[in-house]
Protein backbone atom coordinates (compact mmCIF):
# COMPACT_ATOMS: atom_id res chain seq x y z
CA UNK A 1 0.00 0.00 0.00
CA UNK A 2 1.15 3.57 -0.67
CA UNK A 3 1.87 4.80 2.85
CA UNK A 4 4.45 7.54 2.64
CA UNK A 5 3.61 10.47 0.36
CA UNK A 6 6.44 12.36 -1.29
CA UNK A 7 6.50 15.24 1.19
CA UNK A 8 6.93 12.86 4.15
CA UNK A 9 9.70 10.96 2.42
CA UNK A 10 11.44 14.24 1.57
CA UNK A 11 11.05 15.54 5.11
CA UNK A 12 12.23 12.23 6.57
CA UNK A 13 15.29 12.07 4.31
CA UNK A 14 16.35 15.64 5.18
CA UNK A 15 15.73 14.96 8.88
CA UNK A 16 17.86 11.82 8.77
CA UNK A 17 20.80 13.54 7.08
CA UNK A 18 20.58 16.59 9.32
CA UNK A 19 20.42 14.39 12.42
CA UNK A 20 23.64 12.66 11.44
CA UNK A 21 25.37 16.02 10.86
CA UNK A 22 24.07 17.38 14.18
CA UNK A 23 25.10 14.30 16.16
CA UNK A 24 28.62 14.18 14.70
CA UNK A 25 29.23 17.92 15.09
CA UNK A 26 27.51 18.06 18.49
CA UNK A 27 29.67 15.28 19.93
CA UNK A 28 32.72 16.93 18.39
CA UNK A 29 31.99 20.17 20.23
CA UNK A 30 31.02 18.63 23.55
CA UNK A 31 34.05 16.34 23.73
CA UNK A 32 36.57 18.57 22.01
CA UNK A 33 40.10 18.50 23.34
CA UNK A 34 43.27 20.12 22.14
CA UNK A 35 45.51 17.10 22.66
CA UNK A 36 43.09 14.31 21.92
CA UNK A 37 42.17 13.00 18.50
CA UNK A 38 38.74 11.92 19.75
CA UNK A 39 36.81 14.73 18.15
CA UNK A 40 35.67 13.82 14.69
CA UNK A 41 35.40 17.33 13.27
CA UNK A 42 37.48 20.38 14.26
CA UNK A 43 35.70 22.75 16.63
CA UNK A 44 35.40 25.69 14.25
CA UNK A 45 34.02 23.51 11.47
CA UNK A 46 31.74 21.71 13.94
CA UNK A 47 30.27 25.05 15.08
CA UNK A 48 29.66 26.16 11.49
CA UNK A 49 28.03 22.91 10.38
CA UNK A 50 26.05 22.49 13.58
CA UNK A 51 24.58 25.98 13.19
CA UNK A 52 23.80 25.45 9.53
CA UNK A 53 22.22 22.03 10.12
CA UNK A 54 20.23 23.43 13.06
CA UNK A 55 18.64 26.07 10.83
CA UNK A 56 17.73 23.42 8.26
CA UNK A 57 16.32 21.18 11.03
CA UNK A 58 14.18 24.02 12.37
CA UNK A 59 12.73 24.87 8.95
CA UNK A 60 12.20 21.17 8.26
CA UNK A 61 10.44 20.79 11.61
CA UNK A 62 8.12 23.70 10.86
CA UNK A 63 7.26 22.00 7.54
CA UNK A 64 6.60 18.74 9.41
CA UNK A 65 4.22 20.37 11.90
CA UNK A 66 2.49 22.31 9.13
CA UNK A 67 2.20 19.13 7.05
CA UNK A 68 0.63 17.28 9.94
CA UNK A 69 -1.80 20.12 10.57
CA UNK A 70 -2.91 20.50 6.96
CA UNK A 71 -2.86 16.89 5.73
CA UNK A 72 -4.35 13.69 7.13
CA UNK A 73 -0.92 12.54 8.30
CA UNK A 74 -1.47 14.21 11.70
CA UNK A 75 -4.00 11.56 12.71
CA UNK A 76 -1.25 8.94 12.97
CA UNK A 77 0.12 10.78 15.99
CA UNK A 78 -3.15 10.81 17.94
CA UNK A 79 -2.90 8.54 20.95
CA UNK A 80 -5.97 6.72 22.27
CA UNK A 81 -5.77 7.53 25.97
CA UNK A 82 -8.10 4.78 27.17
CA UNK A 83 -6.20 1.89 25.65
CA UNK A 84 -2.78 3.60 25.71
CA UNK A 85 -1.09 1.56 28.48
CA UNK A 86 -2.51 -1.84 27.49
CA UNK A 87 -1.71 -1.26 23.79
CA UNK A 88 1.83 -0.31 24.71
CA UNK A 89 2.20 -3.48 26.80
CA UNK A 90 0.82 -5.64 23.99
CA UNK A 91 3.27 -4.18 21.48
CA UNK A 92 6.24 -4.45 23.88
CA UNK A 93 5.38 -8.10 24.62
CA UNK A 94 5.24 -8.75 20.88
CA UNK A 95 8.73 -7.30 20.33
CA UNK A 96 10.13 -9.06 23.40
CA UNK A 97 8.58 -12.51 23.00
CA UNK A 98 5.77 -12.81 20.46
CA UNK A 99 7.76 -12.16 17.35
CA UNK A 100 10.17 -14.96 18.26
CA UNK A 101 7.27 -17.39 18.63
CA UNK A 102 5.95 -16.47 15.20
CA UNK A 103 2.88 -14.62 16.56
CA UNK A 104 1.00 -12.23 14.27
CA UNK A 105 1.57 -8.50 14.52
CA UNK A 106 -0.93 -7.17 17.12
CA UNK A 107 -1.42 -3.83 15.29
CA UNK A 108 -1.06 -4.45 11.56
CA UNK A 109 -0.23 -1.46 9.38
CA UNK A 110 -3.23 0.11 7.63
CA UNK A 111 -3.75 3.33 5.74
CA UNK A 112 -5.65 4.69 8.74
CA UNK A 113 -3.04 3.63 11.27
CA UNK A 114 0.53 3.29 10.07
CA UNK A 115 2.16 3.34 13.51
CA UNK A 116 1.93 0.71 16.21
CA UNK A 117 1.29 2.02 19.79
CA UNK A 118 4.97 1.91 20.73
CA UNK A 119 5.89 3.83 17.59
CA UNK A 120 3.14 6.37 18.23
CA UNK A 121 4.33 6.94 21.77
CA UNK A 122 8.04 7.31 20.92
CA UNK A 123 7.36 9.41 17.82
CA UNK A 124 5.13 11.79 19.77
CA UNK A 125 7.78 12.05 22.50
CA UNK A 126 10.54 12.61 19.96
CA UNK A 127 8.76 14.94 17.55
CA UNK A 128 6.47 16.89 19.88
CA UNK A 129 8.52 17.00 23.10
CA UNK A 130 12.24 16.39 22.48
CA UNK A 131 12.66 18.15 19.11
CA UNK A 132 10.83 21.36 20.20
CA UNK A 133 12.90 21.46 23.41
CA UNK A 134 16.03 20.81 21.37
CA UNK A 135 15.20 23.65 18.97
CA UNK A 136 14.22 26.11 21.71
CA UNK A 137 17.35 25.39 23.78
CA UNK A 138 19.41 25.52 20.59
CA UNK A 139 18.07 29.00 19.82
CA UNK A 140 19.01 29.97 23.40
CA UNK A 141 22.59 28.84 22.76
CA UNK A 142 22.70 30.37 19.28
CA UNK A 143 21.73 33.75 20.72
CA UNK A 144 23.26 33.66 24.24
CA UNK A 145 22.29 37.30 24.76
CA UNK A 146 18.58 36.40 24.84
CA UNK A 147 19.06 33.53 27.31
CA UNK A 148 18.20 34.40 30.91
CA UNK A 149 21.33 35.06 32.94
CA UNK A 150 20.35 33.23 36.08
CA UNK A 151 17.59 30.85 37.08
CA UNK A 152 17.29 29.82 40.75
CA UNK A 153 20.92 30.74 41.26
CA UNK A 154 22.25 28.74 38.31
CA UNK A 155 23.49 30.24 35.06
CA UNK A 156 20.75 30.16 32.42
CA UNK A 157 23.27 29.09 29.79
CA UNK A 158 24.23 25.95 31.73
CA UNK A 159 20.60 24.95 32.14
CA UNK A 160 19.93 25.64 28.47
CA UNK A 161 22.97 23.65 27.43
CA UNK A 162 22.22 20.71 29.73
CA UNK A 163 18.67 20.63 28.33
CA UNK A 164 20.06 20.82 24.79
CA UNK A 165 22.62 18.03 25.16
CA UNK A 166 20.16 15.84 27.09
CA UNK A 167 17.54 16.16 24.34
CA UNK A 168 20.25 15.68 21.71
CA UNK A 169 21.40 12.55 23.50
CA UNK A 170 17.89 11.07 23.85
CA UNK A 171 17.15 11.78 20.19
CA UNK A 172 20.43 10.09 19.22
CA UNK A 173 19.40 7.05 21.27
CA UNK A 174 15.96 7.26 19.63
CA UNK A 175 17.66 7.23 16.24
CA UNK A 176 19.66 4.08 17.05
CA UNK A 177 16.52 2.25 18.19
CA UNK A 178 14.52 3.67 15.29
CA UNK A 179 17.03 2.38 12.74
CA UNK A 180 17.21 -1.00 14.46
CA UNK A 181 13.43 -1.46 14.61
CA UNK A 182 13.34 -0.65 10.91
CA UNK A 183 15.14 -3.92 10.29
CA UNK A 184 12.15 -5.75 11.78
CA UNK A 185 10.14 -5.72 8.53
CA UNK A 186 9.38 -8.78 6.38
CA UNK A 187 13.03 -8.60 5.32
CA UNK A 188 15.65 -6.50 7.14
CA UNK A 189 15.69 -3.94 4.31
CA UNK A 190 12.03 -3.84 3.27
CA UNK A 191 11.07 -0.96 5.55
CA UNK A 192 14.01 1.12 4.36
CA UNK A 193 12.97 0.48 0.77
CA UNK A 194 9.43 1.48 1.72
CA UNK A 195 10.67 4.84 2.99
CA UNK A 196 12.32 5.45 -0.38
CA UNK A 197 9.57 4.22 -2.70
CA UNK A 198 6.62 5.14 -0.48
CA UNK A 199 5.10 1.64 -0.69
CA UNK A 200 4.72 -0.56 2.37
CA UNK A 201 4.56 -4.35 2.05
CA UNK A 202 1.42 -5.43 3.90
CA UNK A 203 2.96 -8.45 5.58
CA UNK A 204 5.63 -6.35 7.30
CA UNK A 205 5.85 -6.67 11.05
CA UNK A 206 6.88 -3.13 11.74
Amino acid at each position, binding site marked *: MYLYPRWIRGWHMINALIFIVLIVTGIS*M*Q*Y*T*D*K*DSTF*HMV*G*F*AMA*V*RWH*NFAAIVLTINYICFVAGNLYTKNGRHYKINRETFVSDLMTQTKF*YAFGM*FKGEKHPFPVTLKSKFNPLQKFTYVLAMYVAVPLLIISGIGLFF*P*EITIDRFVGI*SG*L*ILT*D*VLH*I*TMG*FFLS*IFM*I*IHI*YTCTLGSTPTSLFTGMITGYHKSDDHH
Partner: protein
Amino acid sequence: MKFLKFRLFLFIAFYSFSTLLSAANVMFSNDSIVAADTAKFIPPYAEDNERCFKCHGQSKYEYTNESLGRQVKAMMFSERILKRDEFYKSNHKNFSCTDCHSAEYVNFPHVGTLRMEPKLNCIDCHGGDENFAQYHFEEIEEDYKQSIHFKLEEEGFSCWKCHDPHSYKISVRNMTNTKETVAYDNAICLNCHSDFSRFQLLTEKAELNILEKHEWLPNQKSHFASVRCIECHTKINNNIPVAHQIRTKEEAVKRCNECHSQNSILMASLYKFSAREERRDGFVNGIILNESYVIGANRNKYLNIFSLIIFAGVVAGVGVHVFFRLKK
Protein backbone atom coordinates in the same frame (compact mmCIF):
# COMPACT_ATOMS: atom_id res chain seq x y z
CA MET B 1 21.03 32.29 93.06
CA LYS B 2 19.79 35.74 94.04
CA PHE B 3 23.29 37.11 93.58
CA LEU B 4 23.53 35.54 90.13
CA LYS B 5 20.22 37.12 89.08
CA PHE B 6 21.42 40.51 90.32
CA ARG B 7 24.62 40.18 88.30
CA LEU B 8 22.64 39.20 85.22
CA PHE B 9 20.36 42.21 85.73
CA LEU B 10 23.37 44.51 86.11
CA PHE B 11 24.94 43.11 82.95
CA ILE B 12 21.76 43.53 80.87
CA ALA B 13 21.21 47.03 82.24
CA PHE B 14 24.79 48.05 81.48
CA TYR B 15 24.69 46.51 77.99
CA SER B 16 21.37 48.20 77.12
CA PHE B 17 22.59 51.54 78.43
CA SER B 18 25.83 51.45 76.48
CA THR B 19 24.02 50.38 73.29
CA LEU B 20 21.54 53.25 73.71
CA LEU B 21 24.37 55.67 74.35
CA SER B 22 26.31 54.68 71.26
CA ALA B 23 23.13 54.76 69.17
CA ALA B 24 22.38 58.26 70.41
CA ASN B 25 25.95 59.24 69.72
CA VAL B 26 25.67 58.08 66.11
CA MET B 27 22.28 59.74 65.68
CA PHE B 28 23.14 63.13 67.08
CA SER B 29 26.76 63.59 66.19
CA ASN B 30 27.93 64.16 62.63
CA ASP B 31 31.49 63.26 63.56
CA SER B 32 30.42 59.83 64.70
CA ILE B 33 28.71 59.18 61.40
CA VAL B 34 31.90 59.99 59.54
CA ALA B 35 33.95 57.89 61.96
CA ALA B 36 31.55 54.99 61.63
CA ASP B 37 31.97 55.07 57.85
CA THR B 38 35.19 53.09 57.78
CA ALA B 39 34.78 52.40 54.07
CA LYS B 40 35.59 55.99 53.27
CA PHE B 41 39.22 56.20 52.31
CA ILE B 42 41.17 59.25 53.39
CA PRO B 43 44.29 59.57 51.24
CA PRO B 44 47.36 60.58 53.26
CA TYR B 45 48.49 63.20 50.74
CA ALA B 46 45.07 64.47 49.73
CA GLU B 47 45.85 67.99 50.81
CA ASP B 48 49.25 68.14 49.10
CA ASN B 49 47.90 66.54 45.93
CA GLU B 50 45.03 68.97 45.80
CA ARG B 51 47.50 71.68 44.81
CA CYS B 52 48.04 69.70 41.57
CA PHE B 53 44.45 68.54 41.13
CA LYS B 54 43.29 72.14 41.41
CA CYS B 55 44.46 72.57 37.81
CA HIS B 56 45.05 69.02 36.59
CA GLY B 57 41.76 67.73 37.93
CA GLN B 58 39.65 69.79 35.55
CA SER B 59 39.53 71.08 32.01
CA LYS B 60 40.55 74.69 32.75
CA TYR B 61 43.25 76.17 34.94
CA GLU B 62 43.91 79.55 36.43
CA TYR B 63 46.96 81.08 38.14
CA THR B 64 48.66 84.40 38.72
CA ASN B 65 51.54 84.86 36.34
CA GLU B 66 54.02 87.09 38.11
CA SER B 67 56.06 88.04 35.03
CA LEU B 68 52.92 89.06 33.17
CA GLY B 69 51.49 90.55 36.30
CA ARG B 70 48.03 89.18 35.69
CA GLN B 71 45.73 86.21 36.17
CA VAL B 72 46.11 83.54 33.46
CA LYS B 73 43.09 81.42 32.58
CA ALA B 74 43.38 78.68 29.95
CA MET B 75 42.22 75.24 28.91
CA MET B 76 44.09 72.23 30.29
CA PHE B 77 45.57 69.92 27.65
CA SER B 78 43.40 66.80 27.76
CA GLU B 79 46.40 64.46 28.23
CA ARG B 80 47.29 66.33 31.41
CA ILE B 81 43.88 66.02 33.04
CA LEU B 82 43.61 63.40 35.77
CA LYS B 83 40.51 62.15 37.45
CA ARG B 84 40.70 62.52 41.23
CA ASP B 85 38.23 59.70 41.86
CA GLU B 86 40.14 57.28 39.67
CA PHE B 87 43.44 58.21 41.27
CA TYR B 88 42.12 57.67 44.79
CA LYS B 89 40.71 54.28 43.78
CA SER B 90 43.94 53.25 42.08
CA ASN B 91 46.80 51.18 43.49
CA HIS B 92 48.89 54.33 43.86
CA LYS B 93 46.29 56.21 45.88
CA ASN B 94 48.61 56.58 48.89
CA PHE B 95 51.20 58.48 46.89
CA SER B 96 51.99 62.12 46.83
CA CYS B 97 52.30 63.55 43.30
CA THR B 98 55.86 64.61 44.10
CA ASP B 99 56.86 61.04 45.01
CA CYS B 100 57.18 60.47 41.29
CA HIS B 101 57.20 63.99 39.86
CA SER B 102 59.71 66.74 40.58
CA ALA B 103 59.09 68.98 43.61
CA GLU B 104 59.77 71.91 41.31
CA TYR B 105 56.25 71.54 39.96
CA VAL B 106 55.09 73.73 42.84
CA ASN B 107 56.18 76.75 40.80
CA PHE B 108 53.92 78.42 38.22
CA PRO B 109 54.18 78.41 35.37
CA HIS B 110 56.01 75.06 35.50
CA VAL B 111 59.58 75.28 34.23
CA GLY B 112 59.72 74.04 30.63
CA THR B 113 62.66 71.69 31.23
CA LEU B 114 60.51 69.68 33.65
CA ARG B 115 58.82 68.13 30.66
CA MET B 116 62.08 66.35 29.98
CA GLU B 117 62.17 64.68 33.38
CA PRO B 118 62.59 60.93 32.95
CA LYS B 119 59.44 59.00 33.66
CA LEU B 120 59.66 56.10 36.06
CA ASN B 121 58.71 52.67 34.79
CA CYS B 122 57.17 49.92 36.94
CA ILE B 123 60.51 48.19 37.42
CA ASP B 124 62.13 51.41 38.72
CA CYS B 125 60.12 51.22 41.94
CA HIS B 126 58.93 47.63 42.03
CA GLY B 127 62.13 45.93 40.89
CA GLY B 128 64.40 44.41 43.54
CA ASP B 129 61.90 45.20 46.30
CA GLU B 130 61.22 42.33 48.68
CA ASN B 131 57.68 43.55 49.27
CA PHE B 132 56.90 42.97 45.61
CA ALA B 133 59.10 39.90 45.09
CA GLN B 134 56.08 37.59 44.81
CA TYR B 135 54.88 39.45 41.69
CA HIS B 136 58.19 38.91 39.87
CA PHE B 137 58.35 42.35 38.29
CA GLU B 138 61.73 41.45 36.78
CA GLU B 139 60.09 38.61 34.89
CA ILE B 140 57.21 40.86 33.85
CA GLU B 141 59.83 43.20 32.40
CA GLU B 142 61.48 40.25 30.59
CA ASP B 143 58.12 39.12 29.24
CA TYR B 144 57.32 42.65 28.09
CA LYS B 145 60.66 42.92 26.31
CA GLN B 146 59.77 39.82 24.30
CA SER B 147 56.42 41.32 23.37
CA ILE B 148 55.57 42.68 19.97
CA HIS B 149 54.87 46.09 21.51
CA PHE B 150 58.46 46.41 22.68
CA LYS B 151 59.96 44.85 19.57
CA LEU B 152 58.14 47.20 17.23
CA GLU B 153 58.19 50.37 19.29
CA GLU B 154 61.00 50.17 21.78
CA GLU B 155 61.23 53.94 21.99
CA GLY B 156 57.59 54.90 22.00
CA PHE B 157 56.27 52.10 24.14
CA SER B 158 56.42 51.91 27.91
CA CYS B 159 54.44 50.40 30.80
CA TRP B 160 52.33 53.56 30.90
CA LYS B 161 50.90 53.02 27.43
CA CYS B 162 48.72 50.32 28.97
CA HIS B 163 48.88 50.95 32.70
CA ASP B 164 48.27 54.58 33.57
CA PRO B 165 49.93 54.90 36.99
CA HIS B 166 47.28 57.47 37.96
CA SER B 167 44.40 55.07 37.54
CA TYR B 168 45.86 51.56 37.39
CA LYS B 169 44.31 49.03 39.74
CA ILE B 170 44.68 45.30 40.14
CA SER B 171 41.83 43.66 38.28
CA VAL B 172 42.11 39.92 37.64
CA ARG B 173 43.76 39.12 40.96
CA ASN B 174 40.79 40.65 42.81
CA MET B 175 38.20 39.36 40.38
CA THR B 176 34.71 39.12 41.84
CA ASN B 177 32.83 39.86 38.65
CA THR B 178 34.36 38.32 35.52
CA LYS B 179 32.53 40.60 33.09
CA GLU B 180 33.74 43.76 34.88
CA THR B 181 37.33 42.52 34.96
CA VAL B 182 37.15 41.61 31.27
CA ALA B 183 35.74 45.03 30.39
CA TYR B 184 38.41 46.82 32.45
CA ASP B 185 41.26 44.85 30.92
CA ASN B 186 39.98 45.02 27.35
CA ALA B 187 39.56 48.78 27.66
CA ILE B 188 43.35 48.96 28.10
CA CYS B 189 43.90 47.40 24.66
CA LEU B 190 41.02 49.20 22.98
CA ASN B 191 42.32 52.52 24.26
CA CYS B 192 44.77 52.44 21.32
CA HIS B 193 43.54 49.62 19.12
CA SER B 194 40.11 51.13 18.62
CA ASP B 195 41.19 54.76 18.75
CA PHE B 196 43.16 55.62 15.66
CA SER B 197 44.35 58.98 16.96
CA ARG B 198 46.23 57.16 19.72
CA PHE B 199 47.18 54.19 17.58
CA GLN B 200 48.94 56.35 15.00
CA LEU B 201 51.15 57.87 17.69
CA LEU B 202 53.03 54.59 17.78
CA THR B 203 52.75 53.15 14.31
CA GLU B 204 52.52 53.98 10.65
CA LYS B 205 50.06 51.15 10.11
CA ALA B 206 46.63 51.78 8.65
CA GLU B 207 43.59 51.97 10.88
CA LEU B 208 42.30 48.58 12.01
CA ASN B 209 38.78 47.49 12.49
CA ILE B 210 38.79 45.11 15.45
CA LEU B 211 35.28 43.82 14.73
CA GLU B 212 36.13 43.01 11.11
CA LYS B 213 39.43 41.36 12.04
CA HIS B 214 37.57 39.08 14.46
CA GLU B 215 34.70 38.29 12.14
CA TRP B 216 35.73 34.62 12.09
CA LEU B 217 34.91 34.35 15.80
CA PRO B 218 31.41 32.93 16.33
CA ASN B 219 29.25 34.83 18.82
CA GLN B 220 31.79 37.64 18.74
CA LYS B 221 29.83 39.80 21.20
CA SER B 222 29.76 37.06 23.83
CA HIS B 223 33.45 36.33 23.37
CA PHE B 224 34.40 40.00 23.74
CA ALA B 225 32.30 40.33 26.89
CA SER B 226 33.51 37.09 28.47
CA VAL B 227 37.23 36.86 27.78
CA ARG B 228 40.09 39.32 27.62
CA CYS B 229 42.05 40.14 24.46
CA ILE B 230 45.17 38.82 26.18
CA GLU B 231 43.69 35.33 26.51
CA CYS B 232 44.51 34.76 22.85
CA HIS B 233 47.10 37.45 22.23
CA THR B 234 49.72 36.65 24.90
CA LYS B 235 51.96 33.73 25.63
CA ILE B 236 51.04 32.24 29.01
CA ASN B 237 53.72 32.56 31.67
CA ASN B 238 52.89 30.76 34.89
CA ASN B 239 55.53 32.59 36.92
CA ILE B 240 53.90 35.99 36.75
CA PRO B 241 50.36 37.07 37.66
CA VAL B 242 49.38 38.21 34.17
CA ALA B 243 51.21 37.29 30.97
CA HIS B 244 52.86 40.32 29.35
CA GLN B 245 54.29 38.80 26.21
CA ILE B 246 51.91 40.17 23.60
CA ARG B 247 52.38 38.13 20.44
CA THR B 248 52.10 38.97 16.78
CA LYS B 249 48.71 38.56 15.16
CA GLU B 250 49.98 35.47 13.35
CA GLU B 251 50.83 33.87 16.69
CA ALA B 252 47.47 34.64 18.29
CA VAL B 253 45.38 31.69 19.46
CA LYS B 254 42.91 30.79 16.75
CA ARG B 255 42.16 27.19 17.62
CA CYS B 256 38.84 27.03 19.43
CA ASN B 257 40.05 23.97 21.38
CA GLU B 258 42.59 26.01 23.27
CA CYS B 259 39.74 27.33 25.40
CA HIS B 260 36.97 24.90 24.49
CA SER B 261 38.49 21.81 26.06
CA GLN B 262 38.92 20.15 29.42
CA ASN B 263 42.41 21.60 29.81
CA SER B 264 41.28 25.03 28.71
CA ILE B 265 43.91 27.78 28.67
CA LEU B 266 41.36 29.99 30.42
CA MET B 267 42.16 28.13 33.62
CA ALA B 268 45.77 29.35 33.36
CA SER B 269 44.82 32.89 32.42
CA LEU B 270 41.46 34.50 33.20
CA TYR B 271 40.52 32.00 35.91
CA LYS B 272 44.04 31.54 37.23
CA PHE B 273 43.36 33.22 40.55
CA SER B 274 39.94 31.74 41.15
CA ALA B 275 40.78 28.30 39.76
CA ARG B 276 41.24 26.71 43.16
CA GLU B 277 37.63 25.59 43.15
CA GLU B 278 38.32 22.74 40.77
CA ARG B 279 35.02 20.96 40.30
CA ARG B 280 31.44 21.81 41.13
CA ASP B 281 28.51 19.39 40.94
CA GLY B 282 30.52 17.19 38.61
CA PHE B 283 31.27 19.99 36.15
CA VAL B 284 34.83 20.17 34.82
CA ASN B 285 36.41 23.65 35.25
CA GLY B 286 33.48 24.51 37.55
CA ILE B 287 34.76 27.99 38.39
CA ILE B 288 33.91 29.22 34.90
CA LEU B 289 30.27 28.36 35.59
CA ASN B 290 29.89 31.14 38.15
CA GLU B 291 29.31 33.63 35.39
CA SER B 292 29.90 31.91 32.08
CA TYR B 293 29.62 28.67 30.21
CA VAL B 294 32.24 27.39 27.80
CA ILE B 295 31.20 24.57 25.46
CA GLY B 296 33.70 21.73 25.69
CA ALA B 297 35.34 23.07 28.85
CA ASN B 298 32.33 22.58 31.09
CA ARG B 299 31.29 18.98 30.57
CA ASN B 300 29.68 17.12 33.44
CA LYS B 301 31.16 13.83 34.59
CA TYR B 302 27.88 12.51 36.03
CA LEU B 303 26.04 13.20 32.77
CA ASN B 304 28.91 11.55 30.88
CA ILE B 305 28.68 8.38 32.96
CA PHE B 306 24.87 8.37 32.83
CA SER B 307 24.83 8.74 29.05
CA LEU B 308 27.44 6.01 28.58
CA ILE B 309 25.37 3.62 30.73
CA ILE B 310 22.22 4.33 28.69
CA PHE B 311 24.14 3.99 25.42
CA ALA B 312 25.67 0.67 26.54
CA GLY B 313 22.20 -0.52 27.66
CA VAL B 314 20.68 0.26 24.26
CA VAL B 315 23.52 -1.42 22.38
CA ALA B 316 23.23 -4.48 24.66
CA GLY B 317 19.44 -4.55 24.22
CA VAL B 318 19.76 -4.43 20.44
CA GLY B 319 22.46 -7.12 20.62
CA VAL B 320 20.25 -9.47 22.64
CA HIS B 321 17.33 -8.87 20.26
CA VAL B 322 19.50 -9.62 17.24
CA PHE B 323 20.76 -12.77 18.96
CA PHE B 324 17.24 -14.12 19.49
CA ARG B 325 16.24 -13.20 15.95
CA LEU B 326 19.17 -15.11 14.53
CA LYS B 327 18.47 -18.04 16.87
CA LYS B 328 14.88 -18.21 15.66
